[in-house]
């Protein structure tokens, strides 16, 4: 079954066309990277899939439904830096909010309510799944960026979503945490059968795990397997200028010749919307 499908899709922000003519088909359980330079419309794709931004032309379906109508089955992790150091709420509370934080009223104590006990168990499962058991009961503001990111992934997973939309989850992490979190996401993707769309600046930490990439640039986007898309001819076509893709001896890909190569890390990049 198709988890996500775009046909001839065009997205506009105000009067600016972010991308147009994008076709995309993602199957259930696939791990997809969304790549491209800043401002090319990577986060815009996420917003379209959540139903926050309607397409101005073309069609989009999520789990064969209209975007926005199936958000309960989507786990979403927005782009962010991190929680402020003084944020006094525990990691488990944050994960719990992902489970029932949208419900009105307040939860009963576990001693009185089987539902609360079930919720506590589910939160513990999600925390275990991301390997955050050791620090989940500490205040989120006191944790490192990698620890916070794992707990946020647990929060996005706790409702057993069928699709995970992760907007630059690796952005604020150091290299070793980048590959650890990437491996974690891939494990979840395969073991739980969740479709993952991960927006990334740098394809290399996730390259070994990817089923498919969507590459935005030059006002359009192109989808395919990494080896099909991240090549000189394909990217040159997309941008309309000569682009080269170099492969290092350890298998890393470096894109050369775009206005902003995706392999370049931008610690202070503009969040582009």
């Amino acid at each position: 079954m198709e988890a996500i499908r775009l046909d001839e899709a065009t997205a506009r922000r105000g009067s600016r066309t972010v991308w147009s003519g994008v076709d995309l088909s993602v199957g259930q359980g696939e791990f997809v990277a969304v790549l491209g330079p800043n401002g090319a419309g990577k986060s815009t794709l996420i917003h379209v899939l959540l139903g926050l931004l309607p397409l101005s032309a073309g069609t989009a379906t999520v789990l064969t439904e209209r975007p926005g109508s199936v958000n309960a089955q989507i786990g979403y992790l927005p782009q962010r830096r991190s929680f402020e150091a003084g944020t006094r709420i525990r990691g488990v509370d944050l994960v719990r909010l992902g489970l029932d934080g949208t419900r009105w009223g307040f939860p009963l104590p576990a001693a009185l309510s089987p539902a609360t006990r079930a919720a506590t168990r589910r939160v513990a499962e999600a925390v275990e799944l991301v390997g955050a058991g050791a620090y989940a009961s500490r205040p989120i503001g006191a944790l490192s960026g990698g620890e916070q990111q794992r707990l946020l992934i647990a929060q996005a997973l706790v409702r057993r979503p069928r699709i995970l939309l992760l907007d630059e989850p690796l952005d604020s992490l150091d290299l070793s945490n980048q590959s650890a979190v990437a491996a974690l996401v891939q494990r979840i993707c395969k073991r739980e059968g969740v479709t993952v769309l991960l927006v990334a600046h740098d394809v290399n930490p996730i390259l070994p795990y990817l089923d498919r990439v969507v590459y935005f640039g030059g006002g359009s986007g192109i989808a395919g397997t990494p080896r099909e898309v991240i090549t000189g001819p394909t990217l040159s076509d997309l941008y309309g200028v000569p682009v080269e893709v170099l492969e290092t001896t350890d298998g890393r890909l470096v894109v050369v010749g775009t206005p902003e190569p995706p392999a370049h890390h931008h610690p202070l990049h503009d969040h582009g919307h």
Partner: protein
Amino acid sequence: MGIELAGLSWNPLSDLGQLTEFPFMVQALEAGTIVATLAGAIGWFMVLRRQTFAGHPLSVIAFPGAAGATLAGLPLALGYFGACGLGALVLSVAGSGRGGHSGESAVTGTVQAVGLGLGFLFVTLYSGQLSELESLLFGTFLGITASQVQTLLWVAIAALAALAAIGRPLLFASVDDAVAGAAGVPTGALSLAFLLLLGMAVAATAEITGALLVFALLVTPAATAQQITARPAPGLMLSVGLALVVTWVGLGIAYFSPYPVGFWVTSISFGLYVAVRLLRAGLSRRNPEAPGAPA
């Protein structure tokens, strides 16, 4: 000030008897209890949301509201609640614009300045009595009437019921606005609702502590509670408990001492806050592996 009547006998029972001997003091204790419960609960969310800067202009607006009501011969409570409710609406509209926090802070400063000026004008027009000005700004427990207590009780019940109804999504939106919004929480409406509740809490608290000292009950107990625990439910209850203790002890000491209640309430809550921070600093030095570990 009734101080002449009171002398501490150091016999707890007879001192407690003295405390409740006069109706004004019983009403002050009742009002204090209601206000502390409300301020402790709503203050906990305010501190978590980092909206202390939204609470401050509301407290300043409470002053011209009360002074204006006094001048017009209207009930004091009407002035407090009317001004704070209106102020919350203005702040909410100002804050929702594209300016974000910087736009909000400019509006906040502007509104605050004109609020203080108006309040001073009203007090001057009323009679220029300094005691009136002082009690509006720094609180009193002498003038609380039985009908005021009743108004406070109904407002507190309504506000706490509303807070209970929106509690969980409000917590979600307070901690993580973007994720909560994407999950379907109406974050804009909740933000407005919370500002209105905050306005009610400020107005109620100002009747005891005066307009300028509301933070003693709204911020300090909540901040102390969040230093002690990062768990939501125990933290919320602890915040209410601390606000109650601060109010009761403050009123009790003020009754027997020549110094005003506002001073005692602020000093006791400040003392508790400092003590907890020092204790935490000491704990984390002894156990540097887990900074802020006691959750």
